[in-house]
């Protein structure tokens, strides 16, 4: 946010969360209040949830659960760490966590982009349905569990059971994968996939990463048709 742009300032030490979210929900698509700065979040849950306008909301500090939940259109920036379920069920827009994220980051996300500069804990991208997630650090166990669509890019390592019961989401990991979950396998990195990955990294502001270091993972599709020989 440039210094010349006038931002709406909301201090959560003095303003009820309900007032903030309500004000954000009342914004019209052509609002002139396109920049919002949230001070003193102090780990509050549900900050800037359900926003559906193309505004930028910058939060200075750590947030609790479900920050930017069900986000549509908005760009939400967290200058701190985020608690459980940041950007859960995100539909569109961008959520950018400059610190670390707790469990279930981007859970069930249907679209848009989630960028995490630090690490993400367990179940990152669980049941994702189209969101693109880029984690510049590592992700915890059971990440991309039952992931249906979209992509999870991890520049660091992935914990146990990556992609367990995965459907059609695409997973790219640069570092070590502790183990793959049920029905998740490594797949070839074709030029097509390399180009896609490069685009996702660029949109997340990642420069200089060697695409050749990434491996791709996805569904073996053995669980797509229920059969006794495929049960785990």
């Amino acid at each position, binding site marked *: 946010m440039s210094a010349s742009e006038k931002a709406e300032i909301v201090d959560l030490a003095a303003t009820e969360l309900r007032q903030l979210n309500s004000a954000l929900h009342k914004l019209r698509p052509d609002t002139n209040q396109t920049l919002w700065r949230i001070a003193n979040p102090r780990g509050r849950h549900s900050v800037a949830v359900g926003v559906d306008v193309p505004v930028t909301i910058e939060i200075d500090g750590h947030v609790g659960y479900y920050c930017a939940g069900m986000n549509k259109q908005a760009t939400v920036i967290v200058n701190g760490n985020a608690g459980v379920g940041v950007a859960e069920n995100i539909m569109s827009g961008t959520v950018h966590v400059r610190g670390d994220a707790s469990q279930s980051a981007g859970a069930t996300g249907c679209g848009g982009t989630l960028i995490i500069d630090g690490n993400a804990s367990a179940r990152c991208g669980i049941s994702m349905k189209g969101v693109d997630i880029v984690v510049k650090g590592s992700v915890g166990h059971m990440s991309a569990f*039952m992931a249906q669509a979209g992509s999870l890019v991890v520049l660091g390592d992935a914990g146990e059971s990556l992609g367990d019961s995965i459907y059609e989401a695409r997973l790219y990991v640069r570092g070590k994968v502790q183990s793959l979950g049920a029905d998740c396998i490594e797949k070839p990195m074709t030029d097509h996939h390399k180009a896609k990955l490069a685009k996702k990294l660029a949109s997340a502001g990642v420069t200089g990463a060697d695409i050749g270091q990434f491996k791709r993972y996805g569904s073996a599709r053995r669980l797509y048709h229920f059969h006794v020989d495929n049960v785990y």
Partner: protein
Amino acid sequence: MIPPTTPRKSATFDDYTLSEIRRAAATGIYDIRGAGAKRKIPHFDDLLFLGASISRYPLEGYRERCGTNVVLGSRYAKKPIELKIPVTIAGMSFGSLSANAKEALGRGASTMGTSTTTGDGGMTQEERGHSSLLVYQILPSRYGMNPDDLRRADAVEIVVGQGAKPGGGGMLLGQKITERVAGMRVLPVGIDQRSACRHPDWTGPDDMQIKIEEIREITDWEKPIYVKVGASRPYYDTALAVKAGADVVVLDGMQGGTAATQEVFIENVGLPILASIRPAVQALIDLGMHRKVQLIVSGGIRNGADVAKALALGADAVAIGTAALAALGDNDPALEAEYRKLGTTAGAYDDWHEGRDPAGITTQDPELFKRLDPVKAGRRLANYLAVMTLEAQTIARACGKSHVHNLEPEDLVALTIEAAAMARVPLAGTNWIPGGGSF
């Protein structure tokens, strides 16, 4: 000549059990089916109303007023909803049911001033357009979940479990994953789909409290928020749902239906609804929340007597699923020839997951689902709901109540020791309530 003894079949290894052993031996896989528990378990049939007598003063037949309305969500929601009758339609998914069936449910419920509920798979326009009051379910799969539909709903129901399978997830087999169903769920067409058994972004009651707060914030605290649980630990689950901030608790007994679950799960996990209502009500009473947080119960509700008994035990309303499908036309003997072709008979058809329902209800086959006229089927449902309500009022008036919510446990006795212990009412002809102790 020695007189022959009559061939004797085992009560333990009966014909059904032996057939299931043979089926398992042939296939190596468990049986999957729809509907709820079919075994005989203590139920509302084991209770009787006492009616008025010298010490109780009845109301006049169908003339004196006997209220049936129920307000849901008065605890926190800015916009509570009011049902005109204490019977609502339980969550059943588009995917499991045809679009015509969902429309018919909406039409029937709306005619009677009550609500219907979405199910796993999202909200369809047919359903929203024909439901004057629509409850939007948030399930672990989050199929079709989006903030627009959340705001278009009249209430929100967070589903932790259901009576047919407490602790179990869902299935929708490939035959029913058509292009439309797959698109709504973001899944490949034709695959056997699994719905998660636990929520993706919270674990435990403390997290659920935060989740409820998030939904309230997204909907600006307007919508009533329900929490639905399968009956297993009703006292504690009700208490925890109240603590987490629910406006309404929905409690589903093991007779409650499912679209597709393992037979072994349906018949062996969870509690009968009869055994579940009193513990749940006691939890509400202990917390000072009875009638402040509303209780909806379901699982085997069939008629107005069941409605009246559930309310007398302390519930605020009931939900129906299997019975509503029967009212639409499911398992109709008029279709017997077609049920025979499927290897079953009217009244026993439960392979809802296979998508070949001749009644056009549990199917996505265009040739089959167009058989169900949503207008006529909705009319049948409305008629059935009206009869249930009249029956419940008839009993309430006979017990001297000017509102169905004034029915109370003191109006009931039990025919069996088991039912007396579960419902905590006296065994008929005695003042003995077996059991006791804490829940």
